[in-house]
């Protein structure tokens, strides 16, 4: 597993998940996951459907109890002290389950009562910016408007930690802009932190400081976005002889190609790639920086895990 700690945070982490495992029946949803988020950062959580992102987020909110390991948010256990923890967390779920029968103004008035730090002026600004009709019933709102309503009631009290679970799924680009804007505005305020999971890797690349990737409940990598991107290289090799399957070059994964030309991602042992390549009768014809998309695909392709296991990288 690739973990890079670029800076040692002096302040205590906002979120500390230590060796958490979770099982649902026979299915192992989370396997020994440890993540710490320092304050003032944006952590992007990526992974395939069913990798465990929502499960992890539910642990942060106290909706699930850790069967093994500990979860500490602001130093507190969200299951033992839900009031103190939840009053400082803003949450937008994938499908905001807001009460459909409520009108927008009723929803605002209702949620406002629960948070001492609610800023009514800010809430009103957001409502106008999102063009939410106060008299409209939530069940008559479109999907995008509902997401905006959920975002409003999650932002208006300026939570210390903003948690978003696949906030952009199925939403049009304009709503996605609103959500991204909200993330950025949150992080621009001193000391506030964002944790969000997403499939749209382009969005994760734009706003995240750190990225963590889950695959089948295991943490595949976790570190600074810049480090992750720098430590991966995309290299295209041209072989003398046409081959049917790629050679077992160490540190390579996500092979694509056919015949003479094969492309793979390499992590960190690039210096040896050239020597290894010549050993297999290949020369480097192209190299570049992969996008997070490419790293994601390569890592989830399956041959990534074999490469990871072959060299103990820390």
């Amino acid at each position, binding site marked *: 597993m690739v973990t890079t700690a670029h800076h040692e945070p002096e302040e205590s982490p906002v979120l500390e998940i230590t060796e958490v495992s979770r099982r649902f029946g026979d299915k192992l949803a989370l396997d020994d996951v440890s993540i710490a988020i320092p304050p003032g950062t944006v952590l992007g959580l990526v992974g395939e459907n069913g990798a465990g992102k929502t499960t992890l987020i539910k642990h942060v*909110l106290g*909706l699930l*109890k850790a069967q093994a390991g500990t979860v500490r948010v602001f130093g507190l256990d969200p299951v033992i002290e839900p009031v103190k923890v*939840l009053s400082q967390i803003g*949450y937008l779920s994938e499908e*905001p389950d*807001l*009460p459909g029968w409520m009108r927008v103004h009723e929803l605002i008035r209702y949620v406002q009562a629960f948070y001492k730090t609610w800023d009514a002026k800010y809430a009103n600004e957001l409502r106008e910016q999102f063009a939410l009709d106060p*008299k409209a019933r939530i069940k*008559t709102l479109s999907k995008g408007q509902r997401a905006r309503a959920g975002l409003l009631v999650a932002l208006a009290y300026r939570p210390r930690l903003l948690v978003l679970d696949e906030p952009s799924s199925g939403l049009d680009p304009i709503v996605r802009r609103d959500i991204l804007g909200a993330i950025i505005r949150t992080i621009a305020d001193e000391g506030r932190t964002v944790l969000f999971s997403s499939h749209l890797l382009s969005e994760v690349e734009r706003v995240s400081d750190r990225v963590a990737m889950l695959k089948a409940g295991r943490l595949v990598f976790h570190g600074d976005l810049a480090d992750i991107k720098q430590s991966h290289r995309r290299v295209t090799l041209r072989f003398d002889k046409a081959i049917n399957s790629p050679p077992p070059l160490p540190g390579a994964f996500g092979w694509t190609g056919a015949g003479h030309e094969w492309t793979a991602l390499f992590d960190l042992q690039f210096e040896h790639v050239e020597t290894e390549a010549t050993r297999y009768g290949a020369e480097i014809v192209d190299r570049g920086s992969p996008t997070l998309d490419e790293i994601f695909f390569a890592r989830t392709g399956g041959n990534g895990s074999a490469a990871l296991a072959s060299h103990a990288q820390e």
Partner: protein
Amino acid sequence: MPSPALGLSYYIWRRTRLPLISAALYLIILAAAVQLIPAIASPLVCVPLLAPLAAGVIAILGTLTLEQVNFDAAASVYPTHLLIRPATTRSLVAWPMLYAVIIAAGTVAMIDRLLLNQLHLPSATIEQRPINVSLPFIAAAFISWLQVVSWFPIPVPFGRLVAFTLTNLLVFAGNVGLYKAGAPQSIIALANVALVAAAFACAVVGVRGARRGVGQTPLPLTFITRLLPLQRNRRPFRSPAAAQLWFECRRNIFAPTVFACSMALLALPLSMLGSAHARKTGSVNLLTPDASIAITAPILILAFATAGPILVFLSMAAGIGKFDFFAKETRWPSFATIHPMSSGDFVRAKLKALAFASLITAAVMSIVVTISWLGMIPSDRALALAPLAKMSPVTRTLVLSLLPLAAALINWRNAAVSLIVFLTGRPRLITTFTFANIAMISLAFQAGYWLFKHPSHRAALESAFPALIVIAITIKLAVATTACRALTHLQLISRNAVVTAILLWSVFAIIAAVTFHPFAPSSSKLIPIIILMLPFTRLIATPLALHWNRHR
């Protein structure tokens, strides 16, 4: 699936198989028992045993509408994924209706043949034996019209509820009318078949509309709400508890209160009619002349006016255990579980809202009872007051004036005590609990009746009474202590709150003892039982259930 018939039959089978099989098994066992054990064949024993069966039948009927009926939804209940199948509307309606009719009629026929026919019912009861051939047909008509009401898109708010009431009145009133007119069995059966055919035609019209998308958009009545000003600029809530109380009152207790009060109000015209009838022809004892208790029609209606709302309120308590009464799932949505409010505060809000609901229902019940009372003839009034005849006038007046409060307390207790199960949000646990409860109540009736018939065993029980009481008290204390420990450990309730709860319970225990003293001269036996029945753990441990629901 090569044909809509098979496809729909498979779909219905998947939905009804569990209640159908369990109901069938229960029926067979009960029928065998009735044949083999003569003691069970008496109606006082058998009828309570039918309670779980009735629950099963209601469950079956619920599945026959293909989806759960939502009374406040405008759209048709017919599942969309079936509407888009390449089948004609006629076949989409005909097959489920046919199966429903067969299942409903068959179930009722079997219950009637195997059970009701074997019982020795007195001849002067409301349902006379000859009608048994028509019962399955009535059931068929009922279920087919239930399907019509469910599948027809009705864009008027609560229109479906109105339609449901009207169609039921039509079916039952029509049948009762025919019976009173002395129509032969065959005519009654034919009339019901005609009702089913009419239901089929209406359902086809409704489902055709649903396929075209009728009922998907709300009526343009919404423009009226846009004209209204933004509700007098409401001030923000004083506290989270106030906000949650608003939510509970606005959303959760509205339906139970309305239904319970409607039940009471329904009794009012009936009571007026009954009293008017009694004034003309004198009151008639409905039970056989040799029965030890006399029950006339007005008395029965009075009992209905008091017991009905209480039962309705109790049956709707399940909905109050959800975050939103009208939600389909018992599991709380994440919108609710991430509120920064402790489970204890949530429960407190629910209990307060329930108190309001109970008070309002009790008030309506009292008004109805008072008006009915004023309309009753003197002999009926004496009959109603018979249980209190042995009291002094002062005590009697005191008891009568406290009755509304008692009604409110009973309502509140019924709903509050079952909250602990419904708040867990685990559907299987809740279903098991509900059926176990019904089974236990009917068993208690059996045991009571059996003891009544066997005085020797009653004496044995009475001698063991002190030991039993001690055991019961020990268990109750142990459970209560464990619950309180868990509550304070999880910080769901403060120590002060626990102490307050214990004090309140003690006060109620004293009041209960004092209240029941005049009723039971042998108070040494009854009082401890009543005190033991006062709920403590079930109420105070309710936050634990919600905690279990929120943090899985």
